């Protein structure tokens, strides 16, 4: 009796339990991966700014506000004076703009929530990609359609390398201008 019970546990219960654990782990791992990589992260911002309105409907070029993107590593979050370039005149009556103007007048910098972030050990450079003609959307998604910006793509080393290795598959409309990106460690890590 005792022997057959032990037999049963070893032959049936343990494998089933192990199977369930492994499968649960694998499923959880893959299902939660985008979430863990930050995909879909759309935090509430201190000013209710809509990219859809500015970049989509009004067709303002990304570079008009993200002035660093062609020149250096950082695309830069626009400083408040860039906002005020238009909004000292435009839509002054809207509540969010009134708040914005007030912060500008009081010299309070705005703490925008960070959405995209790479590891500190990766030295990504915006300008080199933009200057090669690679558009923002390949990493940031269609921001011009978002009211609240969220992360669309995984920004992991695997994602970087995927594009560096197969640029034409990932960016079919840029076949004419881009070739493979560098793959050696030193191009991002130093």
């Amino acid at each position, binding site marked *: 009796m005792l022997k057959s019970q032990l037999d049963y546990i070893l032959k049936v219960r343990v494998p089933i339990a192990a199977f369930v654990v492994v499968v649960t782990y694998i499923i959880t791992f893959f299902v939660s991966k985008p*979430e863990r990589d*930050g995909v879909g*992260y759309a*935090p509430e911002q201190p000013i209710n700014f809509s990219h859809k309105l500015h970049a989509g409907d009004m067709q303002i070029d990304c570079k008009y506000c993200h002035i*660093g993107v*062609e*020149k*250096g*590593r*950082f695309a*830069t*979050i*626009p*400083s*408040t*004076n*860039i906002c005020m370039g238009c909004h000292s005149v435009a839509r002054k009556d809207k509540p969010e703009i009134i708040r914005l103007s007030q*912060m*500008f007048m009081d*010299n*309070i*910098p*705005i*703490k*925008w*929530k*960070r*959405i*995209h*972030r790479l*590891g*500190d*050990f990766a*030295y990504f*450079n915006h*300008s*080199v990609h933009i*200057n*090669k003609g690679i558009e923002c959307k390949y990493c940031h998604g269609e921001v011009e359609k978002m009211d609240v910006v969220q992360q669309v793509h995984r920004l992991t080393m695997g994602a970087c390398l995927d594009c560096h290795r197969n640029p034409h598959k990932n960016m079919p409309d840029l076949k004419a201008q881009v070739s493979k990106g*560098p793959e*050696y*460690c*030193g*191009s991002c*890590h*130093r």
Partner: protein
Amino acid sequence: MEDKRYWKFFDELQDTAKSEKLKQEEFPEGLKSDKGFEQTQGINRRKFLALTASTAAIFATACSDYRDKGSIVPYNQQPENIQIGKPNFYASTCTSCLNHCGILIKTREGRPLKIDGNPDHPINKGKICPIGQASILNLYHPERLRKPLKKNGKSFNELNWNTLFTEILASLEKASNNGKIVAILSQPIFSPTFVKLIYMFQAKYPTTKVYTYSYLESYSKEQAWEEFYPKAKLSEFDFSRANVILAIESNFLANEGNFVRNIQDFVSKRDINRPNEFSRFYSVETDLSLTGANADYRIPLKADFHYEFLATLLNELLKRDLNYNRAIVEKIQGKFSRFNLEDFASKAGVDIKLVRNLIDDLIQNKGKTAVIAGDSHFYEVHLLCLLINEVLGNSSIYRICPQPSLPKSKLFEIEELVTLMNQGKVGVLFNLDTNPVFHFPSDLGFENALSKVESVVSFVEFESETANRSHYIVPISHNFESWGDYYDGIGLFSTIQPVIEPLFGTYQKEDFLLSLVQNKLERGIYHKYLKSNWQESYFSQEKYAVDFEKFWHSVLHDGTFELKQTLINDYTPNFELFDKIEHRFGTKDWVLVIKKPYFIGDGKFLNNGWLNELPHPITKVTWDNYAGISQSDANRLGLKNGDIVELGYGKSKLEIPIFVVPGIPSSSVVIEAGFGRKESGIVAENVGFYVGKILQFETTKKGYIFEKISLNKINKSYQIATTVEHHSLNDTFYSELHKKRHIIQEGLLEDYKNGKYHIHRPHELKSIVPEIKYTDVKWAMVIDMNKCVGCGACIMACNVENNIPVVGKDQVLRSREMQWIRVDTYFSGTAENPEVSFQTMLCQHCDDAPCENVCPVVATVHSSDGLNLMVYNRCVGTRYCSNNCPYKVRRFNFFDFRSHFKNGLLYKDTYKLANNPEVTVRSRGVMEKCTFCIQRITEARHQAIAENKPLRGNGVRTACQEACPANAITFGDMNDKESELYQLRNHKLGYYVLEELNVKPNVTYIAKLRNKKSEVGA
């Protein structure tokens, strides 16, 4: 090229088993945790706190939004010239020493990060010494004083700025109403605007007297000059025009005069492409100095024999045809005829052939020779040097030294000040960032006199011996937070502009003094004053097509401004001096030579970790000074490195450990001053020994050489941390010469010119791995050993650029220093008179790098442009790569050294600001090494892509290359056939170190050529 025996330290010369062990084991001590695990067993206070903290951290993490990535805070109003992620450069002037080199401060998002020389500056031409580079650490030092302090009994109370101001103002008024002296004590002042301010101050407080001095100042040199050439301003040699140089105990390549300029001038005559222009350099010295190490002929001679040496030389020279005024020559000859060369040579043990050779050289190059005595030397020695230069007609290669805007005080004036202080006649003493209590010999009694002054006000950045004995401490701004100007008195102006708001809300001292004149404390008042002074004094004197604002901005932009004027110096000598000159004769007694320190300035930089850890150029000692003695003396007295001796001079005594230095003559002791500060901050704690105890003020008037010293062994010892034995390349003294590894290759200039040179190259070597062809850009470096003087500027530049941590003395003792580049010093010949060869060693970026093959996690790999990469986030710290590196250039983070060093000092809020944001800050357990400044290469590559141009090699300059005052380092693309690098890499004097290993290194060394005559001493 000759086959000589090279050695780095004495054990190696004596071929002991210890040296073998040192070379074979990178960490001979083995692994030990210095915190000791046993101490943390059980629950003690630290463990309890750690557990509490980690539990709190876990809860905090669990309760927070795990997806939160923080926030980005852009400027409210972004300044127009700031581009986030791109550096801005501002021209300014370094005030770390009195040379006032022009600097270019690199700032990122408003914080200064790196100091380089200003390339537009006519004196230092884009180069800067290690101290200037490391001064950035002083700016961010967490121990900088932040709040004004007022003495209360033995401690200090914090005060607010306005109270401080009114109290100081009141004490000033009280002093001037009572007719008591207001003394201002400062370093020599080179700022014309500040001098004007002082005149204004004097007008308001008429009893003001200004005293200026600098530490280890050579009063004897200036006195000799003023008496010999009464009509001429103090001058120095232009070494770029000197064919023969004779240095007497002079360290002009390391810390005397403007050495950055001297190095550039000196190596301009060491260019292998112009072999006919090589200068010949003789050095006569006690200490083996950096300068002496670069000499073609070095004559070790005890300091008290130097006068005799020069007198003999003079006598011999006068016997030759000098084409000088006959009457004068005969007159001098009468005075010096007793100095006979044969007698002297046998008495002092000097090679007579060598001296004759020197005399021939001096005669042949008459008018183009430089005879220079060191700052520490006797008045009479300086006088003889001047006389020899005069009869040789060398005044043509003199150039005028920078002249302070306010004449320097003489030493007797300092003595007067002390007397006045003791008599209670000094009401207020302003100490403008000097440290007289530490600087002057104890027997002057400055400390005691200070207590008799009614109110002492110290304007300082850091606590100091003097500041702690003051009634008020006024924290002042760092140079990088201040406005100012500089005039060298002979036509060159430069400006000082702030590059950051005062970090701790301090005032610059000029602001405070000007406020005292105007009775109202006001920030930025000196800036306005400076501008109006420039407008009045310089702008309106000339007719400029632009308005003043434009003129001022262009001066600030360039950092310098030159007045066009012709300089005439009247070198009319006064020979009457020699009627009463007292001859000096060498003795058998011990002689003590006090030298200026290499890297800590006047002691102000002793609290700077980078500078303390920079190895001494010759002995590679870090974190200490020592008494250098000869090996024969050490053997005779049974002393070994670190044994403490007691030096006695008159009644004073000093206990200091010895260090055996090759090339020091017997019965000589050499000590570097400036160490041993007791009240300077936690980095400087227990660093070195204070020599002020043994010095006597009376003697220092004549120089810093002390005769009739006693030296006694006492049974104590001390650990000195030297890196000389660390990271040694294994080059055993093989009996079979063909097996020698030829790490150092050098030869004679004469042979090179005759085509007789020979560079050892191994036979054609076969590789077992397929060769990779690099068709595009491939990075390589050439180091010219003819130019390298071994100054260490490259090490400091690398430290600053690449966020190298300071590890501290105990870790240096365990061979764990982290510097990526080192300067190896090899000696050859005897311990008594060695020849010195420097070799700058860094990662060679081998094509077939042995480190790459052994890494189990592929953390070190090769890039397509020929770089040997180190990927920190992959490294698991097996240290196998370091084990396999034949050049011993890999460094391992045994700790997170930033948090390990002095209780996390380097992790304090402000220190973090000094980190280069383009380079990873490595943590514990990670291997690291030179990257060829990959951040700069990447920057250039991205720039090329932005401009749609192909990447060219010559645009990239590594940090070490940029800093090297001698321009010994060339970096670039080896596939670019037009580049300077390509020419040098394929030069016939080029060789690779350890070429026979066939690892295909990418750093080429150009063999050193010595300008010796083959029949004399070669």
